[in-house]
């Protein structure tokens, strides 16, 4: 009982003083400087949560991947010179990949990669800003499967798909980027709560497509605000995949509640804004019965339209190609679309649209980013220890019978008065018994020191007849 109380005290003190997390916790955030000739990845490998990796100007030919949280990867710009990540010579896939949450990627010039320039997969709370990305086979900047992010002040050109592609995401602001000479400028796909604001999208095949695609994990897309962008001369035919559908400024495909407000939309030859149902994708995509194919509640308010739709390309109305588009072309049904008067737009297919209520001002909607970073479920230190015991240890150890590893009763007898010794051993197990009897235990050094000590106390003092 006395031991149990001590354990409770220990856990409580840890809970108050040091939050237990997965992975080592740095006492003080460090800065790791990378100079030309060194590998950025080596620095990222050394970094722990809270650290900043600063990369000096020079040429770096590698793929940098960040599979840990809260690491800042900063390119240091000196007299206009940036660190250059170049994948060309080594035929590399991606410039920077991040799966960790809370990363900042800034200050780089990323070029010549086979897949993406900068991509996040499953990362939340990210910020990607002040990067130059060019000559990328697919996407320049590609955050995916993430919530709460910012993509701002980047310049992306010459990607054969999208310059910026936000896929299957929520609560992302895409602000003040320049995207040009790409197949697509800024694409928001199968996403919710995306703010695309103040960007300059020019000379792409399509400036800003907002779309839902079938056959993916998410079956809805909604609440996208396209505000105060310059969407100009998106008539590029240089990329095979988009040359038959070029000339589009902003497109909305089956996404609900898209608000297009305050943009300058100029010189896009097929349409300034095209609204379409999912069927516009045609037979190249499978039918996804879970997706409602019509866009609803598109709002077009206070935009400036100049000379769009002068030579339509790939635009079909009722199965027939039409020669001239318009500033706004609606090919969809859907309900609740609205248009605020006095924009002077040449229109096609908007006769049933209603007059809009006023658009949300910047005071109403300044950002779709979350006020606070998305956090994990709040667990006490004791809960985390208990969870880890079952999530990891119980796979091989039972209390009093032999599974893959020896029973906990044996471990308790071995380390009765030595929780520190057990915590140390968990991180770097050495063979105690013949390999024929038990396979080698993998090191559990990814669990923080505090968590391992908590586990050791738990195993020695708590695991018993009432446990699994």
């Amino acid at each position: 009982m006395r031991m149990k109380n001590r354990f409770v005290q220990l856990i409580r003190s840890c809970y108050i003083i040091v939050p237990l997390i997965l992975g080592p916790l740095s006492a003080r955030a460090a800065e790791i400087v990378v100079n030309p000739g060194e590998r950025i990845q080596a620095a990222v490998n050394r970094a722990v949560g809270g650290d900043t990796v600063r990369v000096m100007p020079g040429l770096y030919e590698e793929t940098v991947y960040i599979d840990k949280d809260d690491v800042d990867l900063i390119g240091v710009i000196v007299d206009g010179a940036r660190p250059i990540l170049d994948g060309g010579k080594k035929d590399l896939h991606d410039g920077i990949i991040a799966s960790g949450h809370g990363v900042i990627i800034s200050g780089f010039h990323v070029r010549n990669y086979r897949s993406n320039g900068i991509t996040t997969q499953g990362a939340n709370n990210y910020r990607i800003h002040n990067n130059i990305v060019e000559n990328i086979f697919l996407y320049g900047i590609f955050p995916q499967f993430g919530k709460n992010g910012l993509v701002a002040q980047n310049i992306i050109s010459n990607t054969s798909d999208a310059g910026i592609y936000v896929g299957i995401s929520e609560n992302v602001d895409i602000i003040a980027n320049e995207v040009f000479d790409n197949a697509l400028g800024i694409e928001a796909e199968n996403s919710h709560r995306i703010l695309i604001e103040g960007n300059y999208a020019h000379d792409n095949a399509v400036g800003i497509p907002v779309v839902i695609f079938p056959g993916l994990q998410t079956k809805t897309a909604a609440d996208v605000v396209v505000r105060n962008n310059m969407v100009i001369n998106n008539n590029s035919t240089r990329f095979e995949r988009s040359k038959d559908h070029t000339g589009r400024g902003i497109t909305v495909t089956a996404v609900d509640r898209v608000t297009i407000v305050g943009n300058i939309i100029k010189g896009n030859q097929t349409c300034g804004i095209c609204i379409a149902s999912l069927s516009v994708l045609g037979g190249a995509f499978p039918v996804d019965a879970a997706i409602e194919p019509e866009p609803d509640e598109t709002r077009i308010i206070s935009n400036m339209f100049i000379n769009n739709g002068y030579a339509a390309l790939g635009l079909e109305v009722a199965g027939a190609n039409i020669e001239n588009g318009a500033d706004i072309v609606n090919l969809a049904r859907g309900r609740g679309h609205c248009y605020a008067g006095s924009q002077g737009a040449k229109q096609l297919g908007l006769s049933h649209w209603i007059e809009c209520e006023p658009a949300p001002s910047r005071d109403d909607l300044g950002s779709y980013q979350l006020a606070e970073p998305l956090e994990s479920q709040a667990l006490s230190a004791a809960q985390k220890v208990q969870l880890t015991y079952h999530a990891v240890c119980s796979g091989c150890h039972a209390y009093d019978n032999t599974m893959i590893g020896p029973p906990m009763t044996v471990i308790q007898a071995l380390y009765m008065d030595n929780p520190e010794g057990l915590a140390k051993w968990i991180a770097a197990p050495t063979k105690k018994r013949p390999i024929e009897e038990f396979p080698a235990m993998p090191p559990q050094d990814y669990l923080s020191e505090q968590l391992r000590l908590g586990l050791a106390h738990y195993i020695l003092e708590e695991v018993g007849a009432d446990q699994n």
Partner: protein
Amino acid sequence: MVCTNHRRAGCTVQIRNKRHQTISVLLIKAALLYLVALASTPLSADAEVNLSDRCPPYFSLSQGNLCRLKTLYDLYPAANPQWGGYRVALPSRRDGFTPQQIDLGRYLFFDSILSADRDLSCAHCHHPEFSLSDGRDRSIGRHGHGFGPARSGGNELPRAAPALWNMIFQQQFFWDGRAASLEQQIETVLTTREEMATSPGQLVASINAIPAYRSLFLAAFATEQIEFEQILTAIVAFETSLVSLNSAYDRYIHGARDALSEQEINGLNIFRSFASRCSQCHTPPLFTSGQIVTTGVPAAAGLPFDVGAEAVTREPSLRGAFKVPSLRNIARSAPFMHAGQARTLLDAVDFYNQAPGHAVAGRSDLTLHWHMVDPHLRTDEMVDLVAFLHTLTDETAMPVIPDRVPSGLPVPR
């Protein structure tokens, strides 16, 4: 009854005369059942089979005597559980069965009493030795002999047996996604003529006739009279306990940098690159998006093209579409694809590395998923990718094969 030897009388009759075939098959079946009955003695109520009162690995016993899955992925933020990712929470799970129900399900899973002929258990095609699959191109249902790759004779089914890892997270079942629950999936296999060929009534009667099962169901469900739904529940309880979330890959993603080699990490980076797009459908942490997808896998040699989900949905654009299988423990469950079209992982990777539709050339009626692209991976990159796939192996939750099952029938081992 399988005609592996046509000199046997039963087979000759079977070929010549349909009516005689029926009679002869019935007679032989009756004789076989009698022999099985003689050889296997159902265990009495107080026989040595006892149900565990502890949860399986990775589950903890919570209030109400219910087992709850615990995983380190629970420590990550939950953005949208459908998406997937790396350091992310898992989607909702089907846990909350009692230790007794799970363990009873284990006995049922290995017990051939589930089949009409009393010679086929779940484990014949989902065997621990073959990572809960059977190592065959296509599984053999009724009238077969043996288990795993050595199973022979009998009804060859059109598709491979999927490995049963992480069913606890799945929303639809079978390669064509035609079952919306594990219960529905299990009932289909139990009652399909080419597989277990039983009926709910027959199964309930068989199980109720075994004293040991009555005692076990009493312990697990507090019921005197065993019902079909309880049989299904117990098997579901067991199957959802088969989790695999502690591979070298998982340790790496939780922060153990050294858990993967440089080659394996390179494979991971190719896996998640958008040139290859593997992670778009085989999305971590479960390594499946759960979607139904046409990839253009050709018909298996000598068989007609399998239309997959089109037959279920009547949707022509889903012709040849199949559920994206999880890659967890994939290195342990060759051959691959829905009917064994790829022998090795390198074969499977090579299939995806070629031009989309290359293996079904000439067919213009397939709507390949738009993530099917031509990745142009070099051979060394494919080798690294395969090395990465080997890091997804974790069979620590592999169930223990029971020494005996309540029916007394032979346990496949």
